[in-house]
Structures are given as structure tokens and as C-alpha cells.
């Protein structure tokens, strides 16, 4: 089981930080981050989330806890691997948008089953949904940073 803790006090302080560069440990990662090609898996995963502001807020909280994951390739690798399901990596690459959404849903269920969760402001979220949000943050704030 992997769990990440974030105290409410810490989180509120985090929310108070209006811009990404104030997040400790995250700024260098974003500043050097180069967003992958539009047609890549990362971009297609990001496209699953329509509420980008919300996703970025969740992603910011997650990457503040796990700054070592603040790279698109690492997040994509983590999202598409390390589960008990049967979908191979190639399945993610070739999946249509509905298939990709279904794979993500299955991975989220698998995360919860294995307690692969993060605790953000007290909320118990699957690491896959948190990582997806991290991707959205990189795709928006991060892209602006480069």
C-alpha cells in the first residue's frame, strides 16, 4: 500500500499559494518540463478531463506531495503500469477515447482495491486520478512555464 498524507493546514497553505512557482519542489520540475507531442498518450489522457481548472487544482496538491513525479513521462508510465488488470501497455497506446476512459476507470478501481491512494486535503483519491490531474497541471501551468 502506498499512501501520501497532507495535513489540512498544509493544504490550506497550499491553496493560498496563487501561482505554481510558490509550491516547494514543484517549480523546478515545471520550469524544465517540456510537454510531449499533442497526439501522444499524455495529451489523450489529459483530454479525458474537461474541468481543467479543477483538475489542475487537484494535480497541484498531488504533485506538491510527489514532486519527483512532476514529469509527464513519469506520470504516464505510472498511470499505465503497476496494476493487476490484464491490459498491456500497448492497449493504452492504441485505445480510442472511450476505451482509454474505460481503462482509466478500471485502473482507478484497481488502485482503490490495492489502496494505491493519496490523501489530499483529507480526501482519499486514487493515485491514477491524482496523476491524471497532475498531467493536466503540467499541460497547462507547466506548458506556460517553458
Amino acid at each position, binding site marked *: 500500500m502506498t*499512501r501520501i*498524507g497532507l*495535513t*489540512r493546514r498544509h*493544504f490550506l497553505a497550499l*491553496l493560498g499559494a496563487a501561482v505554481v512557482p510558490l509550491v516547494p519542489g514543484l517549480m523546478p520540475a515545471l520550469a524544465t518540463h517540456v510537454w510531449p507531442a499533442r497526439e501522444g498518450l499524455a495529451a489523450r489522457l489529459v483530454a*479525458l*478531463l*474537461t*474541468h481543467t*481548472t*479543477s*483538475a489542475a*487544482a*487537484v494535480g497541484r*496538491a498531488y504533485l506538491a506531495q510527489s514532486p519527483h513525479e512532476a514529469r509527464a513521462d513519469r506520470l504516464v508510465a505510472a498511470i499505465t503500469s503497476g496494476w493487476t488488470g490484464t491490459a498491456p501497455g500497448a492497449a493504452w497506446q492504441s485505445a480510442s477515447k472511450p476505451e482509454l*476512459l474505460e481503462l*482509466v*476507470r478500471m485502473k*482507478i*478501481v484497481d*488502485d*482503490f*482495491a490495492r*489502496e494505491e*491512494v493519496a*490523501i*489530499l*486535503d*483529507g*480526501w*482519499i*483519491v*486514487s493515485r491514477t*486520478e491524482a496523476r*491524471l*490531474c497532475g498531467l493536466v497541471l503540467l499541460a497547462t501551468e507547466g506548458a506556460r512555464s517553458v
Partner: protein
Amino acid sequence: MLLDARTIPDGAQLETDLCIIGGGPAGITVAHALAGRSTRILLLESGPDEYDDPTQSLYDGESVGLPYYSLKFSRLRFFGGSANHWGGYCMPHQAADFEARTWIPHSGWPIGEMDLAPYYPRAAELVGIDTTRFDLDWWITQDQDRPLPFDAARAVTRVVQIVRQNRRGFRFRDDLQDASNVTLCLRANALEIVTDDQGRTTREVRVGTLEGARFSVAARAFVLATGGIENARLLLASNGQNPAGVGNDHDLVGRFFGEHPRFGAATFVPTDRAIPLGFHFPHRASLSTIEGYIGLPRELQRREELVDVQILMQRELGPSFDDAVDAPVVRDALALPRNLTQGRLDEFGSHLANVVGDLSTFQQFTVPGAPLPIPYPELVGEVLNRNTADRLELIPAIFGDLAGAAYAQLYGAPITTAIFRTRIDQAPNPESRVALGTERDAFGMLRGQLDWQLTDLDRYSVRRTLEIIGAEIGRLGLGRLQITFDADGQAWPEDMSGGYHHAGTTRMSADPRRGVVDGNCRVHGLDNLYIAGSSVFPTVGSGNPTYVLVALALRLADHLGTVLS
């Protein structure tokens, strides 16, 4: 026979076979079980037949530990005892409650689940429930509602039965009064338990009335049944022969005070308003009223080394109109909608709801502004299932919900949430204790002092239990859980309270160095003093104490019937 202690002459010496001190559920059960036999029983009750403030004030005392209810009012001192404010919740202890669990210091009973099993049918009759069945599978066949569909290896639902209001109270006065071998003596306050010089036999109990009379009762056997705080207080205060008090050779009397700590620890936000939660709130099933508590399977608790933490759901159907109108600023008309919005998710929760909604097959998790159904179908069902008096009780809730619905039409629907409240079987803790204070009551007896304490194991168990249940809720797609309990802090939540479940202060053990009473509830070292009630519970247990202590009192009555015949 009924006797008023004020009619007993000062200095009188009464004599009987069995003297029971305390007319609450435990004492009444013992007397009731032995009614009609040849054993002469004198049941001493401090109070009259109804509340009396000078008598109740004898319970006043100081609380020096974690915040707790007023000692004066957390138990009741008149015939029927604390059953007079009983909520009617019944559940037996589970087999695991009796086991010595290596990760829980001082756990383990000298008796097991099967020792109490034969007494539950009669206990059910006495407390007023219709069946001794508590297994979920059976209740599902009796109930239209369904529990949340947990994987039984990850989380479980436990059934609690709730005694109907008009059957609570434990007032078997007529039965006792009519029994030829029972004398119920009201307004009789036990002041001291007196043993022989060797401290091996209880000789008599000294009794007083608030009017000033003093008399004594000699008996072949005594049962102390005055509750989890007062049992310890009376033993400690009975220090005429031994400064440590009666039954206290190993400094155990008063220690290990336990409760079922309760507080709001998490917020559950369902993915969809249509997810049925009715099973987890008090509701009618067949002829009974039941509620489903959420907990962890025992095997998982063993693996994780946790104490038992049960979760009670507290309904939060959007904004509370009652809360809104009760707010100090209610005179300001604008305050009403402002207060009603407090049922909404906070900023981060709203963001998370949007993310979950994007990825979910459900839609309602994220829909701000969706109108609420008016009125809620489940409330209509509740109303139809209630009798007239209970329906009247629901009117404020319905009014509040309608106001909330009206608000929702104007400003958007708030999220329906449920608060997860804990019910912890707190770990036995010798530093959590009842002692004698420095103030004295109307009899000159030192008042009780409570120092309620919890342990890090309790705190850790709450957090882990919520994490596991939260992950299971996520796995099932039921919603998300926000842990609001600060498990890393040192303070306990401000809303923490207990259940008036006072346990452990005269704990049971086969070993005199580890317990005050033995497996038959007899005080170690004394051949004729017994204790009834939850004060003998070595661990508070997962069950509700009243049902369990009544079964245990029936078992004690069986034992006394043999001993005294």
C-alpha cells in the same frame, strides 16, 4: 414488596439472603431473574420512582481528563437507573471482543461469546427487542433496504436493533413488587460496604437516607450494580477496613475506565444521490427498527492490529434549515441563504467532484444547480412507516428539507453528504480512571472523579479504519470519503463524546492481579461480593453495553441461584 427507606427506623439492622445495590438494568435483571424463588432479595435503590434532584446531585463529580459529559447527568439515579435515558440500541459483543488480542494490551475476557449465548434470548425479552438475530444475511431477507455492497474481506455492515421508544426504560417495578421474595427499597443510599476484619467476607452494607436515617443490611451475598462510575466510587470509599478500599488489593478498582468515543471523523460524498443509504440509518425492517453500522472485518483488524472502530452514518441532506434558523445572525434575512450554502463542498472538494465526475459513469456527483426532489422519497417512506407521534417528530426535518429544496431551486442543489461518526471500542488504559475526588456529597462521601484518557492506538485505529473504508467506497464507485479527523494531531475532536457507556472500572479477569472480579463476577478475595454491569467489561466491546450486561446479569443470577440455594 415495596419499601420506602424513610420509614426504616434509624439504626435498624436488616437481614436478607441477597442484597442488590442499585436498581438499574443490571440490578433489576438479577432481582427479576430470581423473583419467585425462595431466596430473599432486598433491592436497594437510591432514588425514588422518578427524577429527584437532591438524589441526582449525589452523582455530581469532577472530570479532569478528556472532556466528558457532566458526571451528574451522564447516568440517572432513580428506579430504572440509566435505562431511563437509554437510546435502546442493542447489539451483542462478537466472539473477537472476548479474545486476548496481542496488539491490544490488557485485552481478553475470562469468558467467551458462548458463555453469554444462552442468556441472550431472555435478555432480548427484558430489553424489548423481538429477535436475537443480528446476522446481516438474515436481516437482508427482512428488509427492503440494502446495505452498501462491501467486499466482506474489506468492510462489513453490522446490524444494531433499536428498542421502540415505548418499550424502553426497564421498569419492571410491578413484577418485583408482586414477587413474594423481593423487597424493593427506594430512597436507600449505599454508603459503605463493610467486610470482616480479614477482608474476606462482606458483612453488611451501610445505608442512609437524605433525611438523615442510617441503617445496615446484612446478607449472605451482595451484588453491586450501581454503574461503571459509582461501582468504583463505592468500593474505593469503603475504606474502613482497608485504606485502598474493598476489592482493591492490586490497585485496579477505578482503572481502565472505557467508553465508546464518538465524533465526526469523515464526510462521505456519494457519487450519485440515488445510491441507497437507508440501511445505514435507523429504519424499520419487518417489525423491528434497525441500523447498519460500518466496520472492518475482524481478520483485517487482526492483520492491521487495530481496535474495533464502527462507523455510524449521520444524515446530511444538504443544508440544514434548522441550523440556518438557529444561527445567531438569523435576524438578518440574508443570513439564511448564506447559512444554507454551508452544506456545499469546500473549494477543493468541488474541484475533486468535477474530476470524479469527468471520469465516472455517474453524473450527479458534479451537478451544481440540479433540483432536489421534493420531498425526498426516503423521507416519505420514513413518514409512512412511523406511528403518529413519530411522524410529528419528522415534521421539522421535512420542513428543513423543503426549505433546502426551495433554496436549491433558487441557488442550486447542495451536495448530499453523510457524516461518518466513530464508535471506538477504546483500548484498555489503566491511566483512564475513576478515583475519589476532594469534594464531598450530602452524605459526606467523597465524590467521584473521572480522568478519561485515550491512547495512540485508538487514534491510529480510527485513521486506518477510515482509510480502508474510504478506499472500498472508491473501489465500488460509491463516492469519495474526506477524512476530517486530524489523526496526526494530539488533540481529540471538539465534538467527541461518549455513549454514556461506562465500562472497565471493576474489570473481569481470572487473575486477581489483572482484574477486580472473576469470571463469575465475584470480587477476587471476597467470597460473597459480586458486581453486575458494564464495569466488569475488560474491554468496552463492539456491542451495546445494555444488552450485553443484561445477559451477563442473567448469567450472574444463575450462578447466585445455585450458590444461595
